[in-house]
């Protein structure tokens, strides 16, 4: 799963030469062996490296505070979203929904790596949500629809249908 993500990320960043990745351990943590230097282990580490390789540091945040927020969501993705149990999904959706109430992207008003990786990570949950649930987590769904249409991001993932109009009124149970 992570390998597909990384290959999509490379395409999204416009990197011409795809890297060769390997995995380690039961949890299939991705590894990138570099020619001159230590191996890079872990999705976030490798992704960050790719962003720098593509010379798009703005994707990691502008100000120091901004950078910290991006790191926070990257960590959330790897620790909370990956390998989460069914019971945790509701909490994650609620968290994202309330956080995104007044923000366009995860790090505020700017598209960053946090959005891409969160999109890749949470796609398998969103694709199975019923229309009513998507409307319940309105802000999260709005963000998701926005990111999946962001040029160059989607790649390996099928599009999730998001209706333009609300079908369930607020009084609906």
């Amino acid at each position, binding site marked *: 799963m992570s390998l597909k993500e990384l290959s999509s990320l490379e395409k999204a960043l416009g990197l011409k030469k795809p890297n060769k990745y390997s995995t380690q351990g039961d949890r299939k943590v991705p590894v990138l062996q570099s020619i001159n230097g230590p191996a890079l282990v872990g999705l976030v580490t490798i992704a960050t490296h790719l962003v720098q390789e593509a010379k798009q540091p703005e994707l990691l945040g502008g100000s120091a505070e901004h950078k910290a927020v991006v790191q926070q969501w990257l960590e959330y993705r790897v620790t909370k979203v990956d390998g989460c149990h069914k019971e945790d999904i509701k909490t994650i959706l609620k968290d994202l929904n309330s956080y995104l109430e007044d923000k366009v992207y995860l790090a505020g008003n700017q598209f960053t790596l946090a959005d891409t990786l969160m999109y890749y990570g949470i796609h398998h949950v969103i694709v199975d949500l*019923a*229309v009513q649930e998507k409307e319940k987590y309105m802000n999260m769904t709005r963000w998701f629809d926005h990111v999946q249409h962001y040029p160059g991001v989607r790649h390996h993932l099928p599009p*999730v*249908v998001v209706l333009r*109009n609300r*079908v369930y009124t607020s*009084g609906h*149970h």
Partner: protein
Amino acid sequence: ANMEGQKAKRSVHNLGKSQYGTRLESDMALYRPTVAPVLTSELGVASPNERAPADAYCIVVIVLGKQCFLVLRQQQFNVQALVAVGERASKQMVKFAANINKESIVDVEAVVKKVEQTIESCSQQDVELHIERIFVVSQAEPRLPLQLEDCVRPEGEGDEDGRATVNQDTRLDNRVIDLRTTTSQAIFRLQSGVCQLFRDTLTNKGFVEIQTPKIISAASEGGANVFTVSYFKTSAYLAQSPQLYKQMCICADFDKVFCVGPVFRAEDSNTHRHLTEFVGLDIELAFNYHYHEVIESITDTMVQIFKGLRDKFQTEIQTVGKQYPSEPFKFLEPTLRLEYSEGVAMLREAGVEMGDEEDLSTPNEKLLGRLVKEKYDTDFYVLDKYPLAVRPFYTMPDPNDKKYSNSYDMFMRGEEILSGAQRIHDAQLLTERAMHHNIDLEKIKSYIDSFRYGAPPHGGGGIGLERVCMLYLGLHNVRQTSMFPRDPKRLTP
């Protein structure tokens, strides 16, 4: 209590002069009120000064100093009444009134007085009764199994104060009391209206009402969900629908028929919309050129019912809405009709994956209902041309496309209320389709025979009275619209 008893006994002899007491059956022959009884619903500022309401239920007794306040109720209407120490009433009479148990039936003679401040809590808000004589006709037991004010409390209200709502099972176990609530009274009056409108509309269209047998020799819709009864030395079944008999009436040259009667389904479904016994309103008619004539006849009947309810039962709709708020029911004229394939396309657009000939699951039906509501702004619509594979054996296939059939479902608020179709009226085709469905031809021999001697093309459908009422009012459980519901877990009251 003893004193009261003695007083009551004495009053038998001079009943005409006594002012209060418990009235015994033996007294009834002697008692004549001084004025004609009046209904609580008629009490208002225009009422002349002295009236006697007919027997009413006494629902609340509050004592304040030298006065006793009561609320008297008849069906959906209630009025405040008062017994005060003074010219009209003695201290003992006020004490008697204060000791009347809630829900007792009382007979009262009172003077109707205009009040300065509107009495918000009663239906008759501009007047109160100053009681001159009060008799208990039937005493209720002091401990009631449930409190009426708890029964009409909307969900969620009063949660902070710790005031309860009553759960459904308790209500159903004590149905006689639960049915007295304003909400229940309104629901079942509306239901009576649905039956009346159904009959009147169809009679005006030239339909004949028929009665069909409920004890039958073979399961009409398939063997699984049928109740068996012992029938002398053999067994018989309770009819799952009047289907076969409706059709036989058409073959018997009755042209257009309808019937209202019980339907028995031994389905072990414990859902909000299934009952094991419900009232079926069924229609069957012969048509001239195209089965859409049948659809039009049915949808027009439904629209007349909706209009009749909207125009004549607003009070009831509002009363139910106080406890169970919902959006008013919307429908289009002419009724919206979509083809099954269009419905599938709408669902696919919303991200649902399903096959062309796949049946609609309940969640998909509901979602389609929401999509239709959003797009066309209607709570009532028809889905036409269902795939043949998912319909019963007697459904007429579509002559232009053998994957589909001349059958249709109708929906209210996204839930199915009617399943109907053009029926096969040719014995040979019917035999072929039955064999295709692996049905034992011996069991349906007399059914197939009805079509051997000249049968017109015909179609129809049936609705469930309880489900239609539930969905029209926007309620969420069919037991609320069934007076004494039957389900896999309930056989009483």
